[in-house]
């Protein structure tokens, strides 16, 4: 068992190393570097000042030297300074963003689960009625709406036109922290993030429940005289939820993707906004650290899964 874990940890570390090399090379292959991002094309800059900046940032060194210098510092926990943020240390900058992203992502997912399951049940129970058809049409629209479009329309409609929610940010600037303020900023991006997921969950829930409702044990429950509400809640929904739970688990990755768009539109200070800003401004240290951290999370989760499998399934140990 221990041998297996050590082997998996070693493979995980090698994958992380490969990831850093890959990201490092990909960044250097894109046109433009941090200095190019620094130059406003309309503002005259002295070439020698820019060269001094290039030297100070180590961008004048050969690529292998740059990579090894970054790796050596990273192994000591020093991920450097953000190039475009006046010397802000990268690690705390990236760690600060994890919380807001998780908050937004899981709030959106929670709304999607409640709404998706609720409307899925309603749609299945009222099969082929106007309610069912209307919900199905809405779900198709929801599934096919790109996140950036729903975000922009939502921002314009609910914030600018109706003034129901703030237009962006996570807290009101200059105000002391309050849960109410946080919720008022969270509710709109979270709802918009949940649209596509709600629609997907609704489709799965409807299909799954319709299948369960035709099972013998449901018929038996009805025959015993159990009220229809309890037949659905206790007997049908529980069983119909199993494939939906699998779906929810597998769509967390999509939620992260959607959160990036939503964060950009609503200026939500999460990993998505940080990454988008870092890429457009070629902020190499931030991109490297954020990618490494995300990659480490994915590899760690996979590693833990493998270890748990190995612990419960003796065949894994053999293989």
């Amino acid at each position, binding site marked *: 068992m221990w041998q297996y874990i050590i082997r998996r940890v070693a493979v995980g570390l090698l994958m992380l190393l490969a990831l850093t090399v890959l990201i490092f090379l990909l960044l250097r292959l894109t046109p433009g570097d941090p200095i190019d991002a620094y*130059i406003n094309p309309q503002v005259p800059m002295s070439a020698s000042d820019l060269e001094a900046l290039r030297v100070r940032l180590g961008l004048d060194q050969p690529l292998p030297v740059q990579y090894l210098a970054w790796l050596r510092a990273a192994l000591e926990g020093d991920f450097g300074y953000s190039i475009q943020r006046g*010397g802000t240390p990268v690690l705390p900058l990236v760690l600060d963003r994890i919380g807001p992203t998780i908050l937004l992502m899981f709030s959106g997912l929670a709304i999607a689960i409640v709404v998706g399951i609720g409307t899925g049940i309603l749609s299945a129970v009222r099969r082929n009625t106007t309610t069912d058809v209307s919900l199905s049409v809405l779900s198709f629209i929801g599934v096919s709406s790109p996140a950036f479009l729903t975000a922009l329309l939502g921002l314009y409609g609910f914030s600018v036109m109706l003034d129901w929610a703030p237009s962006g940010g996570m807290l009101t600037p200059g105000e002391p922290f309050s849960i109410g303020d946080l919720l008022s900023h969270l509710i709109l991006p979270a709802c918009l993030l949940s649209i596509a997921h709600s629609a997907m969950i609704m489709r799965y829930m409807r299909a799954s429940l319709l299948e369960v409702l035709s099972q013998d044990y449901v018929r038996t429950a009805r025959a015993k005289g159990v009220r229809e509400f309890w037949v659905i809640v206790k007997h049908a929904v529980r069983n119909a939820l199993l494939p939906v739970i699998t779906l929810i688990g597998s769509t967390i990755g999509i939620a992260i993707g959607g959160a990036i768009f939503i964060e950009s539109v609503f200026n939500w200070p999460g990993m998505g906004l940080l990454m988008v800003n870092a890429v457009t401004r070629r902020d190499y240290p931030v991109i490297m650290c954020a990618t490494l951290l995300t990659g480490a999370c994915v590899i760690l989760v996979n590693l833990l899964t493998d270890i748990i499998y190995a612990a419960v399934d003796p065949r894994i140990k053999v293989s």
Partner: protein
Amino acid sequence: MQRRCFGRLIMAGIVLAASALTIVPAMAQANKTITGGFDVGPGGFPGNFHPLQATAGFTWLSTYYEPLVIYNQDLSEIVGALSSDVSVSEDSLRYTFKLVDAKWHDGEDFTSADVKFSLEFAKNPASGSLFAARLADIASVETPDEKTAIVTLAKPNPAFLAILTQIMMLPEHLLGAKDPAELANSDWWSTEPVGTGPFKFVRYVSDQYVELAAFDDYRNGRPKVDRLINRYFANAAAAVAALKAGEIQFTYVEPDDAKTFEGNNDFRVIEGDSYVINYIGFNHKVDLWKDLRVRQAVMHAIDRKQIIESLYGGAAKLASCGYVAPQIVPEGLNDYAYDPEKAKALLAEAGWDQIGGGQTIPWLTYYNSPQVGNVMAAIQAMLAQVGINVSPRAVDVPTYNGIVQSSDFDQFPLVYAGAQNGPNPASLNVNLNPAQIPPAGNNIMRIDMPELTEAIEKAMAETDTAKANALWQKVCSVMNEQLPWGSMWVASRYGVTSAKLKDFFWTPAPAGGPYQAYPEKWDIAP
């Protein structure tokens, strides 16, 4: 009973959701606050706090830092800021600054020692300063007394005071003992900076906003508002949404957005000169553009007046050379009137009537706004009518800079770009002087025209304003005649404020200024 419970559950959920939606931030502000998107648009530099590493964003920086001298409101003259008087010796080598009585935000007096420290710090490349080369002419800084600083230059530099407008004074008593190299990457700038401006730094919430508070001991009186907040936005459209929602009171806006505020009494639209000349850049390393007649043909093929009228709504000035300021533009320039037949004839004369040979010519730009997209599409159609088929390609700024600084000329035979042309026209030098051809500088179109170079260098060396204007007129004539690039127009830029703001001044200065904005006078109605 059970059905009722289920219904109650649903209702509770709806009530909870509705209450969350209607929780409006507690806006009961005990004090006056102005919130704006001060770093939105081309004049902004969000996230930068080191004033000597700024390439823009000076509108905001000058609310808590101050330079020795500053441009006045219409950017026509340089006047005192932390200096009450500036005298220049006859040989233009010695600048004597008499300093005002000012205090740093921590209560210490501002003295000539701070001036000496700031200029030497800014001249030191180790400090991370992007002004080091531009201040290289400083030979010494003397401080005969606490209120006098004398700067001696190694050689005359007519642009010296213009450069000083962007050099913010820094506190020697706080930074003097620190290693300049450490300060290049220090968080001091974003956590506890100390300036002499009307507002003092309170906090920066990463990627969200910067908060300042009124400086009670400001020499021109305490600011009228208690707090100034600079909110960050991912783009100008998001800032417009916040402005319309009443969350902020000011932002830069794109020209198309500015139109949506016209006639709305809740807002005030501010229009100003962009000080950016838009041009069609001919890559002089590409054979296609080496014949002057081909460049002339491009100019005659484009109906610039029509584009200004229909796509800019008249809010742009036609340019005949690199600038439009009347005192430096001579009479009798070629206006390159729209004449497609003449364009075709010129191409035929030059032997380029089969220009492109059936291939389209890549046309690179870093502009990504819908308005510029429309402008480029219109020009594309006009050029096609005379047989010049171009293919616009919009990329982000780093990609653009990466391409135009490279030697892969096939990637950018033609560009659509902008160049700062004021308040000091000498800023065009880096775009036109062969000494600035990459990697040495920013002459990205590889322009090498001896007559033009000589004219620019003469104009830049002249310290007498009247004579300098005459020399800049000569530069304009040469540009108009030889077409180093195809000058198009100087468009207006816009800001929008809430009608609640009083005595608020903003102008779309290049790099955000700085200029005399008098933030201590800004006020907001309840």
